[in-house]
């Protein structure tokens, strides 16, 4: 991918993000990214609100149509496809862990987890740690074929460690790069690379 596709690709993955956020990930000067985004807004390929950007639907269709050009070889790479499928299996478990983080059973009924039961929360964070142990080697194998994916391993580990250190917002808060946020972006990235659609 060149700058013309990496900037929109990350605008699509990190929804509603600022030019400096995207520049930080793609490792380009913020001026370059800002210029690309301004051009995208001027040609109806992106919209901007409060300095945050989102791709327009047609720009996303065009971007996705070029993924087979950039990543067609990975779709035929058995090692990559196997690792991707392993990720999908762990993804099912991750969604259950996040759901259990957000809810708990009280008197036989599921209610929102108000995070007043430290033992319950610690149990979930342990399960999140177990999920991470499963996904870490998968990300390593994916990154062996596509090195840029390694950044997700770092983001997930940083979020997990912050949660383990007691700042529980790092589990699933949507406004930061929480474990769930980084996971969702990795999943979205992999779906696009593989040319597949999200199941639910």
């Amino acid at each position, binding site marked *: 991918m060149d700058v013309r596709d990496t900037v929109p690709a990350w605008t699509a993955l990190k929804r509603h993000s600022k030019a400096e956020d995207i520049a930080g990930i793609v490792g380009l000067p913020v001026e370059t990214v800002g210029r690309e985004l301004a051009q995208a807004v001027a040609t109806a390929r992106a919209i901007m609100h409060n300095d945050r950007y989102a791709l327009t639907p047609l720009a996303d269709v065009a971007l996705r*149509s070029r993924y087979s*050009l950039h990543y067609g070889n990975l779709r035929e790479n058995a090692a990559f496809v196997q690792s991707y499928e392993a990720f999908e299996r762990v993804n099912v478990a991750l969604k259950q862990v996040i759901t259990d983080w957000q809810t708990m059973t009280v008197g036989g009924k599921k209610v929102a987890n108000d995070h007043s039961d430290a033992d319950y929360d610690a149990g979930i964070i342990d399960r999140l740690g177990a999920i991470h142990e499963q996904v870490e080697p998968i990300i390593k194998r994916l990154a062996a074929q596509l090195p840029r994916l390694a950044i997700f391993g770092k983001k997930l580990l940083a979020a997990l460690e912050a949660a383990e250190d007691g700042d529980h917002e790092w589990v699933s808060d949507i406004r930061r790069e929480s474990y769930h946020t980084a996971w969702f972006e990795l999943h979205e990235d992999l779906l696009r690379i593989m040319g597949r659609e999200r199941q639910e």
Partner: protein
Amino acid sequence: MKKLPIDSARYQRPVASPLVEATLGLVREKIRDAWQASGQGWNEFAMRGNDALVTGEMMADIEARILASGHRFDWSASISAQERPDIYKPADGAAGDSENFMFAHPEAQTADADERGWALRGVGDNVVRHAKDVTGVARYIRSNERVLSYLTEGVPAGTIAVIDDSGGTLTAPIIDQFAGVICAGGTVRSHLGILTREYNIPCLMNARITGIRDGDTVMIEATAPAKTAEDYQNNVERTGRVWLKGDI
């Protein structure tokens, strides 16, 4: 993966129109796939003739993918919009959703209005139990125009979003402004379920509703028990209800 000769022409700006870029991108994607599958050299493959290279079926699929993104075409002859209203922007030029559109699920449970004037219009899977039911104005979120206008102008207070899909793709940037969400797809573990729980917004997934139009006042039974993973495994029907405010 094979590259078309034109795929290497990178030193040009994208074409002026995003619609043209998307269409060309999809055509090239399909030609690459067909070339790859043919096992032929480029000259041999490309000289088969235009009718063999780009088929009607291929173009129908490209149109479907463009429409699936939420795009609707501009029309120049009104007969076009009359014949295929689903693929064109509304004839009156209004952005987005038809006032008369409504989900009409064949299995929706319904009942006449009770003594308070609330008529049952269906059920869905509650993502988490809340202390109170929530009342608001149903607004279908089915077009990108509507999402973009909410994104730039804000979501009207008390909006209960009625959504087709569960990926949360379209609505993620504005989700925290909804009073409630009714989603026709997914499960309580879907991405949209996770997002709404995170924002403490009442939400029913896998909703089977009928007879609710844009602008109607509706109530979600957010106090209903949440559906659990075990419920899905054991096919236990555990739902929250959706009511429409009718005339008493």
